[in-house]
């Protein structure tokens, strides 16, 4: 074996060892690396109990309720399978709106007097997510129109409502 081959193996071993170490580390930490969990995790009992964590999902259409005269707001976060109601007091980011992805940080409590589900998140931070799609307003408008038309056609031809995320 020439010295050069020995050095080549040395470099290969460094890369292999470090990748293996990183692989094991990330597999072990997998759930902790997630920035947020989703409402389905909450329903499955995977949410941390009595501890602050982050919950992510879509703000359900028509679910935002504001208290007149103060900054209190209530809305429902959905991942199109399960829902969690969120209560928050404070200023919301610009991108917060119905149908938008959000990540809220807070504590979960069990409640029976909610319109949707049994879980209430008392949030102390609301962050808005945005996606990787960039388009001018008129393109978004025409996309929305064709989407609506398609949905209308779908509902008129198929008897059973199909829920698609």
């Amino acid at each position, binding site marked *: 074996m020439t010295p050069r081959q020995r050095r080549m193996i040395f470099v290969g071993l*460094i890369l292999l060892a*470090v990748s293996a170490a*990183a692989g094991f580390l990330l597999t072990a930490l997998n759930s902790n*690396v*997630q*920035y*947020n969990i*989703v409402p389905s995790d909450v329903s499955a009992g995977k949410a941390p109990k009595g501890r602050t964590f982050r919950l992510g999902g879509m703000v359900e259409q028509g679910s935002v309720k504001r208290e007149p005269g103060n900054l209190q707001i209530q809305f429902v976060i959905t991942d199109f399978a399960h829902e969690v109601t969120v209560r928050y007091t404070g200023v919301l980011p610009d991108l917060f709106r119905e149908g938008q992805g959000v990540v809220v940080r807070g504590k979960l409590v069990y409640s029976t007097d909610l319109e949707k589900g049994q879980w209430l998140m008392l949030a102390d931070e609301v962050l*808005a997510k945005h996606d990787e799609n960039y388009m001018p307003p008129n*393109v978004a408008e025409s996309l929305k129109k064709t989407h609506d038309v398609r949905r209308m056609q779908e509902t008129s031809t198929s008897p059973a409502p199909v829920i698609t995320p």
Partner: protein
Amino acid sequence: MNWVWFHKLASPPTAYAFARTLRPWLLWPSLSMMLWAGYAALFVVPPDYQQLDAYRIIFVHVPAASLSLMVYSIMAIAAGIGLIWRMKLAHAVAAACVLPGSVFTVLALVTGAIWGKPMWGAWWAWDPRLTTELILLFLYLGYMALRASFDDIGRADRAAAVLALVGLVNIPIIKYSVVWWNSLHQGKTLSIWGKSSIDPSMVMPLLVMLLAFVMFFGAILCDGLCAQILRRERHAQWLTKQVQ
């Protein structure tokens, strides 16, 4: 295949002359492309349907972030070549990469924070993408510090090369962090093979800016490489001849 040109290029005098010649051919086109792309990004392309004008920061943020990964990969590969083939010029290339690389990383983090505050509602979040990019900055800074802590340039080269190779594992983690885990950071926008998720009316300045950043990095790398060669070859005869 004839490799003579490659071995010739690896000799410091040829590389020095090559870098000096190449530099203006990269620098001036890249600066004019940046000017055009910057103008188009601010005044020509339409606003985004949701973020309105705030999205225009991607025209700096995305190229800076891409370059921060690309430069690190080049640095680590050069370090590996230097380690295996004992090529001093490869170590010089790696050493010249670290400063521009760290500047691109800082630029990506700062523009991201400026964008994050109005859009997400936070300057910073311990999101997988953001955290791994911060680790990348620390790798660059660690590389600089390690290099500076040796007096002997050969030992500095070898130690820094090992660090660069160890840090290479972070690059795919940064790239795929938005795919592997739930994150606050959005997914990738530009795609080479598939369909990009940016409207065709907005994509041109972004691509031009990306190319301009790559060429600008090339010009800076030529400068850095010349500086490295001057320092490493300061006792060499060809250099004294050239200076006289």
